[in-house]
């Protein structure tokens, strides 16, 4: 689908169908189509779409055979929409050195302490997308615990002795907060460490009213 082979319908085409609007072009989701005076459409660059390193579970096929091109473009177009929203990776873009990429990746390793456990663990908050995922991970790590969702509070329980734990965290200002109050991303940004506190000790914290919990998956 290279520009040279297209048959452009002039805008003054009187049939009444705005065929331009329905023409397929390659482009990023949400991008509007633009034409220049020369009638060349943007968003039809072969190069860009084909270099998207789609992690869609299939091998990264790069071939320049014509047939393969078309298939790839169609696949890529469909895939591009999905994967770009899911953080698709262009090879070598943005042009940032590896040493800087580590800054950008911001692996957010924080310490997790459980009252009564002899040693702490570390988790990378960037690995999770929701409180539920984090709690599941903690459940795995501290295998004696199970998640108990009570009134949509984030609690863990040790079924062996019935001790309930409440997940708390220290934020950037040094204050201890209840896990789950703020949106997940905000939590990841501000959390410095997590402590699973025994419920009995958490009495000082204000009782939770069953308002809608803003921690979305």
């Amino acid at each position, binding site marked *: 689908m290279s*520009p040279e082979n297209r048959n452009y319908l002039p805008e003054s085409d009187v049939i009444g169908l705005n065929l331009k609007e329905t023409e397929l072009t390659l482009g*990023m989701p949400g*991008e*509007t189509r*633009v034409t*220049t005076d020369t009638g*060349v459409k*943007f*968003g039809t*660059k*072969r*190069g*860009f779409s*084909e*270099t998207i390193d789609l992690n869609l579970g299939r091998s*990264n096929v*790069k*071939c*320049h055979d014509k047939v393969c091109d078309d298939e790839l473009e169609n696949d890529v177009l469909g895939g591009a929409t999905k994967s770009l929203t899911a*953080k698709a990776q*262009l*090879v*070598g*873009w*943005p*042009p*940032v*050195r*590896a*040493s*800087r*990429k580590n*800054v*950008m990746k*911001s692996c957010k390793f924080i310490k997790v302490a459980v009252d009564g456990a002899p040693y702490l663990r570390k988790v990378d908050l960037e690995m999770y997308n929701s409180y539920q995922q984090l709690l599941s991970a903690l459940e795995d790590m501290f295998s004696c615990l199970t998640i108990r969702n009570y009134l949509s509070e984030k609690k863990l329980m040790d079924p062996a002795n019935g001790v309930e734990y409440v997940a708390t965290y220290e934020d*950037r200002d*040094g204050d201890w907060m209840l896990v789950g109050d703020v949106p997940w991303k905000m939590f990841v940004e501000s959390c410095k460490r997590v402590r699973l506190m025994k419920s009995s000790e958490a009495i000082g914290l204000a009782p939770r009213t069953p308002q809608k919990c803003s921690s979305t998956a």
Partner: protein
Amino acid sequence: MMNYFPDEVLEHVFDFVTSHRDRNAVSLVCKLWYRVERYSRQRVFIGNCYAISPERLIARFPGVKSLTLKGKPHFADFNLVPQDWGGYVQPWIEALARSRIGLEELRLKRMVVSDESLDVLSRSFTNFKSLVLVSCEGFTTDGLAAIAANCRFLRELDLQENEIEEKKNHWLGCFPDSCTSLVSLNFACLKEINLAALERLVARNPNLKSLKLNRAVPLEALQRILMRAPQLVDLGTGSFVLDRDSDDSETYRKLRTTILKCRSIRNLSGFLEVAPHCLPAIYPICVNLTYLNLSYAAGIHGSELIKLIRLCGKLQRLWILDCIGDKGLEIVASTCKDLQELRVFPSDPFGAGHDAVTETGLVAISSGCPKLNSLLYFCQQMTNAALIAVAKNCPNFIRFRLCILDPTKPDPVTMQPLDEGFGAIVQSSKRLRRLSLSGLLTDRVFLYIGMYAEQLEMLSIAFAGESDKGMLYVLNGCKKLRKLEIRDSPFGDMALLRDVGKYETMRSLWMSSCDVTLGGCKTLAKKMPRLNVEIINENDQMEFAPEDSQKVEKMYLYRTLVGPRKDAPEFVWTLV
């Protein structure tokens, strides 16, 4: 007239000619000048280690004391060049060692360095003083140990962004007690360090002016080090974190007091790990700073950055993360009136953070900092109007690199390509030497570049242009072009082959994911024997008798006086 002067007089005159280019020009005047110049040349710069051989270097410049070598193409920084491509320093060091050249300084960029090379280096040159390695790989801390142990007069060991395998040895402890000549030490790219050895080393090196620590140096150690080295001009902190326990407030107080004594610090960097509440410790020295690099400090938020910047009235160079935001850049603009260089790096590759910067921040900077001449700006979006305003406010750009995180994004206000904006930049900055483009761009931007960018030496193109015409405008118009690197753009054989002689006037050309074919590259290689035309062949694309019509995924060509290189790996084909 000059022919009647003895050679020593000529040599003395040439001593005042220091830049590489000027000395190269001097050597072309006549045979006499060529001869005098070559014997007196001490500093040699080789921008592409495959353009010439070590033997020829030594034959021409027997008095060389300082050698700079560059290896891999620039796009290797972004993982576009496979491992084992080349760029080995070993043959250079071996040849220099054999020849008894009195090497004192070696600066390498994007080269493969082995422990053996470092060992040979450390033993072969008694006056060796300075080793600078930038973006190199292939060695371990054993190699560093050899340098530390054997280079008796070492003044400078500068390791910038290298990939170094760290062994259990304590290489820093290999500096003998007699080593007191250090002026500059940078090991920020390492993960570990022997703290005790470091502190002892700093204590016995009173001439230390530049010290860049790594993450493993905690704040308490920094405080002790600064106590010993208040004369530092250039400091890179390691970890700048203190927990908020009461024990550490003592450390914090001591740090503040110590920093107050460091009145010579002009360049500040590091903060590889940072707790914002510790930042006030550096407030007292901010007023003296001319260079501030916070581009690795992911833990500092916009508001804290702003508080810091407000104190830095004398800044000339600022490297920062985009979480400073447009608002933060406005503060920079109103505070840093002497700003010449600004680099804004992305903290999130997809610009999803609400704090990332846009055209607004850049316009503010241009408006407040008219001395700006060097820019690297990663942003969410850019408009033509903004670029036109920037061009008007700052006509002095030498380096202008814009990277819009979405590489084909048009002007979001007009939905037009950014041709006019970049056109304004090249038209107004007559001394522009380096340019990187991004955003939606047609052939028109290249027309402008060819017309106006008369001093342009390096151009980086990604996802831009519509046809061969674009590339031709550049090749025809930019007479001083040395390095051209292009990825994912629709330029093909027609542009590649139009003026084959052009490439001998340039250092190199990189083209990846473009439309050049194997046949086109072969034709070029045949016509130009003094170019190495290399095809990088990954993914077994071209395993079975490839067709000439097949597009080439990655091509790198460069002028050379020594023919195809003998160390090319299997996946690199040099066409002849």
